[in-house]
Structure formats: structure tokens, C-alpha cells
């Protein structure tokens, strides 16, 4: 992660203000811009503010406050002055920009006649989540992920912010490239929210491996079947399984002989089992490994790895 990458997130005329913060690119986690509110950044899980000269300060009273016009201009820049091209993303409340960084958006939503979100206006809150690919994040998991040189279907479980996506990304990369535990295989990724590959203009911004195909921005259910038909993957990866339709699509993919790498929100294996849409999937033993993760003192870690029976795994 280079300082320039952070600077390029901002329009040319406001880059001077961000130079100091950009120097912390490797440790920078979030940048928050709220109209009329102090500019804040999150570095190593600690919040700081930026003053008018771009100096990093501790007190919000000293911080600069962006105007609504600045945020509109910022949004235009992030959308490459083509907001219409990002209408779907804006509707969902986030954009993925060059470098795979996610920009969360909030403002006033516009509803259609049936009460669904049609678009968003007066976008006055931006939360830029800086993407950091952690190569080797899945190293500790790899010995458990193969049986006789073949990948096993694995479900990563953690509460939000527990590092599931980071782990999944590295799993995909290693499975695709091949490791000491097994040769590289074709992996297909349904990247519904552009979080895994961080695709920008169709190009993956994160290293997801040499044998990986990415279907970006596609709903999981449609995407999984489409990829199975079109790309013949050995492994299919999806992030954040969250509905009965997702679970059914995974079952169907499993039935086609694909191995699955997936993530789900949850505090424990039992909690996941209690989700009505996951009960059947788990009873059918679609997954052969369950990996419990959480975040302690700012670090994501693997808490436990379970086998298909739900028993803790021993190192192979």
C-alpha cells in the first residue's frame, strides 16, 4: 500500500491536505468524511483527526470540516465523474475504487413506488475503508484445508470485523496458486460486493491467484450457477452467506462436485447451526471444515477449526 494510492483517492486540489495521512498508508484503516464534521482517520485502531493544514491531531475541535460541496466533488472524483456508471453500487451504499478500497456512502435514499431503494442523493457521509491484502493470512489454516491433496469445503465463521474476508482472499490465492499441501486448481469467485478481489473496471486489484476467475458485482445465487456452467471451477468461493437462497445455491454447487470456500457471520458454530437457512446445509455436511475466527486487541486470529462432524481438528 503506497502513499500515492491514498492520495489518488482524493481530487487533485485537495491532495495537499492528505499528504500527512497518506504517509501512514500501511497502517491506515479508515478515512471518514462527514459534511460539517471533523475529518477523521483510523490508524492502528486509534482515531485521529486532520486539521486545515493536513496535520494529524488528537482533538476533534482542531479538525477541518468538509463542506457538502467538497463531498459531492469527492464523490464525483471517486466515480470518475460518471456517477451514473456507479448507480447500482450507490444504491447498495458502497463503491469499490482503484486499489480495491471500499467507500461506504450514506445520505438520503430515494425510494421507488414499491418502497425499494432506487438511488441515493445528498451523500454527506463517506467512509473509506483502506484495503490491505495480508499475504499469508491463511498460512496457519492451509494444513487443515487439504485431504489427500484436494481442497475441502470450508466455512469461515466470525463476527463482523473478524477478518473473514481477508482470510478468504488469502485462501483463494493460495488454493489457486498451489501450495505444499496441494496443486493449484481453478477457483471461481462470486464477488457480490467487490470485497474479495476488489475489482476496479473489471481488473482484480487484489492478488487472488493465477487460476482465479472473478464474477464481480453479481448476486451469489445467480453467480454460483453461472460460474459452474461457464468456468468449470474446482473450487467456488463466496463471501457472507446470508439467506436461504444462498444456502440452496451452495448446496447445488456442492452437488456439482465443486468445493466451496465461504464465509458467514456468527459468534460460534452453534450460532451458525441455529440459522434456519444453514441447518440443512450443515446436516448434509456440505462443509468439511468450519473455521472460527475473531478479533482480539486489533488482531484477527483463528480460534478453532472443526471438522465435518463439528469436532475440533488436530493438525494434520
Amino acid at each position: 500500500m503506497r502513499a500515492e494510492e491514498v492520495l489518488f483517492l482524493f481530487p487533485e486540489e485537495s491532495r495537499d491536505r492528505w499528504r500527512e495521512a497518506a504517509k501512514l498508508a500501511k497502517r491506515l484503516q479508515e478515512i471518514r468524511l462527514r459534511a460539517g464534521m471533523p475529518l477523521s482517520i483510523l490508524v492502528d485502531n486509534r482515531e485521529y483527526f486532520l486539521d486545515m493544514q493536513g496535520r494529524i491531531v488528537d482533538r476533534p475541535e482542531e479538525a477541518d470540516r468538509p463542506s457538502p460541496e467538497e463531498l459531492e466533488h469527492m464523490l464525483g472524483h471517486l466515480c470518475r465523474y460518471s456517477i451514473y456508471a456507479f448507480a447500482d453500487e450507490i444504491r447498495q451504499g458502497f463503491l469499490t475504487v482503484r486499489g480495491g478500497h471500499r467507500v461506504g456512502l450514506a445520505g438520503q435514499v430515494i425510494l421507488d413506488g414499491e418502497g425499494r431503494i432506487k438511488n441515493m442523493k445528498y451523500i454527506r457521509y463517506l467512509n473509506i475503508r483502506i484495503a490491505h491484502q495480508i499475504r499469508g493470512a491463511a498460512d496457519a489454516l492451509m494444513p487443515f484445508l487439504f485431504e489427500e491433496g484436494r481442497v475441502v469445503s470450508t466455512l469461515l465463521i466470525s463476527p463482523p470485523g473478524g477478518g473473514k474476508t481477508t482470510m478468504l482472499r488469502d485462501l483463494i490465492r493460495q488454493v489457486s496458486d498451489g501450495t505444499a499441501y496441494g496443486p493449484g486448481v481453478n477457483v471461481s469467485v462470486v464477488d457480490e460486493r467487490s470485497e474479495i478481489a476488489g475489482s476496479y473496471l473489471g481488473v482484480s486489484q487484489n492478488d487472488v491467484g493465477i487460476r482465479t476467475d472473478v464474477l464481480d458485482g453479481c448476486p451469489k445465487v445467480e453467480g454460483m450457477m453461472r460460474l459452474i456452467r461457464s468456468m468449470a471451477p474446482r473450487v467456488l468461493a463466496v463471501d457472507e452467506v446470508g439467506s436461504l437462497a444462498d444456502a440452496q445455491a451452495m448446496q447445488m454447487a456442492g452437488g456439482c462436485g465443486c468445493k466451496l470456500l465461504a464465509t458467514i457471520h456468527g459468534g460460534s458454530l452453534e450460532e451458525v447451526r441455529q440459522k434456519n437457512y444453514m441447518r440443512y446445509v450443515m446436516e448434509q455436511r456440505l462443509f468439511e471444515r468450519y473455521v472460527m475466527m475473531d478479533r482480539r486487541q486489533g488482531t484477527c486470529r483463528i480460534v478453532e477449526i472443526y471438522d465435518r462432524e463439528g469436532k475440533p481438528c488436530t493438525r494434520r
Partner: protein
Amino acid sequence: MYKAVGFLCILAGCAGWGHSLAGQEKERVRHLKVLSCLLGQIRGEISYGKHTMPEICLLLKEWNDTCYSECFGRIYKRTSEESGTDFPKVWEEELWKCMEPFPLREDEKRTVAELAKSLRFREESGQAGRVAQAEAFLEGRYRQSAEACENKSKMLHSVSILTGLLLAILLL
């Protein structure tokens, strides 16, 4: 002998002047056609391709072999290579510069050069609609001019030759 040569020179000069005027008008019609086609392509890429404006500029550069291709190439280069320069500003600058020598009217140039200022729509249908307005304006001008051009061209040729004759008779 000298009078005959002088007569021919004056006649040729006036005919050339008439031809040049008619040519300018034809050139204007050609530019209007090209611009209206380019706007049609932009509209299509917004509606169906959902490309961003810098990407559309790159496509226009690659697909077309017109006097505008280089201009679109420069716009793409200036706005896409992480420069962060304001797209409407670059579009306006480059297009004014490109269209400066062309025999287009001021309002026709302005329609194209200031188009990017209105690229703030949040939906592709709205954005494409805005481009379609500019396209319709140029298309209308093109039709008017194309019809008038033929007649005007003949008239300019006749007038210039007659002027030449008159001048030659007066002078010689």
C-alpha cells in the same frame, strides 16, 4: 495577351474564393455529422455499456479515425492516469482547443465543449438523455445545413464567377 491572362487570373481567383466559401460550409456540415455521431456513440456507451466518461473517451479514440480522436485520447490520458484532474474541466479545455480551427458556429462548439458540465446525473437514463439533447441539437443543425449547403454551394460558385467577371470587366 496580358489582359487575357489578367482576366483569367481574376476569374480563377474569384472562383477559388467561392469554392473556398462553399468548402467551409461543406466542412461545417461534415463536422456536424461527425460530432453528432460521436455524441450518439457516447450516449450508447452510457446507456448500454455503462462505461465511465474517461473510458468512453478512450473508446472514441480507438473506434474513430476523425480529427477528434487525438483530442479524446488526450482527455483519457489526463483524467484516467490517477491525475485526479476534474473531468469537465479537461473535456472543455481539450475540446475548445480541438474545435478552434473548425468552421463550426460558436453555439455548436459550446454545446459540445460544455457537455461535460452536465455529467452529474445519477442514473444512466438521465445522463444519456442529456447527451441525446446535445446530439439532437447538432443533428438538427446538420439537417438544416446539409439541405442548405447544396443550394448555397451552387449559389456561391455562381456568385463568385459572376463577381469575377464583373471585376475583370471593371478592371480591364
